[in-house]
């Protein structure tokens, strides 16, 4: 196990910067998930940690050792690829043994290690098969097994679940969590799926355009997104965002002609922005039907019934849409006017220009540290 530290990491292809100065410390044994839209530089970052991509600037250290110029085989890492990358011409057993044989371990020792890994992943019956004879889920297990047998300092995962169908993906996600208990090691996991990021990560690293947008625990990034991008990226359905204007005292915000109280929590931070335009965010799950506290009125434009809940697309004033998550049996009809209440403490505020969150000082301090 080892700490992974990225220091001002840069990757550029010709003039194009794929990764622009990344600073990140992943503590020993932590499971960090890099998440972001495609092209945000998350895979490139992972490949630089693996040594598959040259580093244009900055340093990467694993366990206190700068590995910039080490070939992948000397970094003591293991990696799971999106398309499994199993050696097609070898049996499952030989796939698992490949890395160990390269390290000149005795066959007896190899057999022992493989047996152990196979029992963890329950792939014992597959040992003599070839990768082509396995299902996607089985191949993914073998790919995991190939990593486990090596006992590396760091596990790297490059979108390992995205080739699986939705049901299998959910299943493998749980297995990965279970696996973590049995094989604790520092892990870096790349995905574009925010559900994987939230459920698997101890640390969630949200990236966009080659830059880190926010680093935090799943709850931190959900409760206190650092900027509009993070706010929109984490959570499904995405956070509703309105243009608003703060009053002179910074205590009320005008949204679609309705004055909403900004709430106790945000008041101090918003004082500096009094009288200015801000972006106001509220998560669909925090909007409730009813008329207490802050209220907004809208007509129901679309109803999405999911069984466990219902999503309402509300139309308010100038074509502003709001999604609200409500109980599946709520007596709502299409085009009906409804009143929703918006708890002031759940409102998020963002600077209209910089799009950065306007957060209570104590909070931003804590996150930066």
């Amino acid at each position, binding site marked *: 196990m080892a700490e992974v530290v990225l220091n001002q990491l840069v990757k550029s292809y010709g003039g194009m910067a794929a990764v622009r100065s990344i600073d990140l410390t992943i503590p020993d044994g932590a499971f960090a998930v890099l998440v972001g839209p495609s092209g945000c530089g998350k895979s490139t970052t992972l490949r630089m940690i*693996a*040594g*598959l991509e040259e580093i244009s600037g900055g340093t990467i250290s694993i366990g206190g050792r700068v590995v910039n110029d080490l*070939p*992948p*085989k000397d*970094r003591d*890492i*293991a*990696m799971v*690829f*999106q*398309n499994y*990358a*199993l*050696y*097609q*011409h070898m049996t499952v057993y030989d796939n698992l043994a*490949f*890395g160990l044989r*390269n*390290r000149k371990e005795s066959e007896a020792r190899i057999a022992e290690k493989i047996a152990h890994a196979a029992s963890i992943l329950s792939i014992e019956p597959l040992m003599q098969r070839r990768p082509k004879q396995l299902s996607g889920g089985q191949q993914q297990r073998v790919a995991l097994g*190939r990593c486990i047998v*090596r006992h590396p300092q760091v596990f790297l995962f490059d979108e390992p679940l995205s080739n699986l169908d939705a049901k299998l993906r959910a299943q493998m996600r749980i297995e990965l969590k279970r696996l973590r208990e049995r094989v604790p090691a520092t892990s870096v996991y790349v995905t574009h799926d925010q559900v994987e990021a939230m459920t698997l990560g101890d640390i969630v690293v949200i990236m966009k355009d080659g830059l880190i947008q926010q680093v935090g625990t799943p709850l931190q990034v959900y409760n206190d997104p650092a900027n509009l991008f993070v706010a929109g990226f984490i959570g499904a359905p995405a956070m509703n965002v309105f243009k608003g204007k703060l009053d002179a005292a910074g205590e009320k915000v005008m949204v679609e002609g309705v004055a909403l109280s900004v709430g106790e929590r945000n008041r101090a931070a918003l004082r500096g922005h009094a009288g200015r335009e801000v972006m106001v965010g509220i998560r669909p799950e925090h909007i409730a039907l009813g008329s207490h506290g802050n209220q907004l009125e809208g007509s129901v434009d679309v109803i999405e019934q999911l069984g466990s809940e219902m999503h309402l697309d509300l139309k308010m004033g100038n074509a502003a849409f709001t999604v609200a998550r409500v109980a599946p049996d709520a007596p709502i009809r299409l085009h009906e006017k409804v009143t929703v209440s918006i708890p002031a403490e759940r409102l998020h505020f963002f600077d209209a220009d910089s799009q950065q969150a306007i957060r209570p000082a104590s909070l931003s301090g804590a996150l930066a540290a």
Partner: protein
Amino acid sequence: MTVATLDTRTPMPHKSERGFFSLMAPGARRAFFYLFVIGVGFIIAFPVLWLVLTSLRPASGMFYVHRGTEFTLDNFFEVFENRIVIKAYINSAIIATLATVLSLGITVTSGYMLSRFRGPIASGWFSIIYVFRCVPYISWVLPLYILTQNLGVYDTYLGLLLPHIAVHICFFSWLMKGFFDGIDPSMEYAALIDGCTRWGAFVRVALPSAVPGLAALAVLCWLWTWNEFLFALLLTSHQTPVLTVVMAQFVHELGIEWNLMSATAVMALGPALLITFFGQKYVITGLKI
């Protein structure tokens, strides 16, 4: 019910089912298909069948093949007694095999480089191959003739082998690039992480996966050299006769010995057919990638 009404409606024909062929009965359509296949097959096979027929006819009956009923194996016996033909046969086999074996290593690594590497060396190599491929084949011949004369390798194995190897590299590196493009590079990345060097990842992981491609390549290289005429004509003479050239020498001032030429050609067909027969599985799977 709406569902019931929907079911009674005639479904719209699928787009591809409309047109001339859809108007035919299924049986007629199949007959048409077979007729077409047989027709095309006949057009392709006719020259070969004619060749075989000619090789089995006496010289006197050459121009009456379609009428004659007299068949003979004398042409083959005569050709077998001709020591030049036998020597050329052996030479062709040796040169085709050597050229294939010797060029394979370079072609495979060169194809791999074109597929996996970026940078000045790879793009430089790419340009060289590209330029040589664009140059008309025939324009290579004269410089090669002068070069082999000057190097003193004219009319030797080496003098014919080297140009063939060069051609293999230029023409088949692309093919090999295609094979490697079809092989997932992350397998090699996994090997790098699993303790291989870059070369190790190539030899132990990429290469075994490219075996069908390699086999296809070997077949194509061999057939190319076996059938090649132009280089052989200009770069060899009496010392190192080659089958394709010897075959052409049945055309001489006293006439054309079609029967002997055909017999030699049928003999030349043998190994090529054999190679194609056993290799076509690889060629097809290889080209499919």
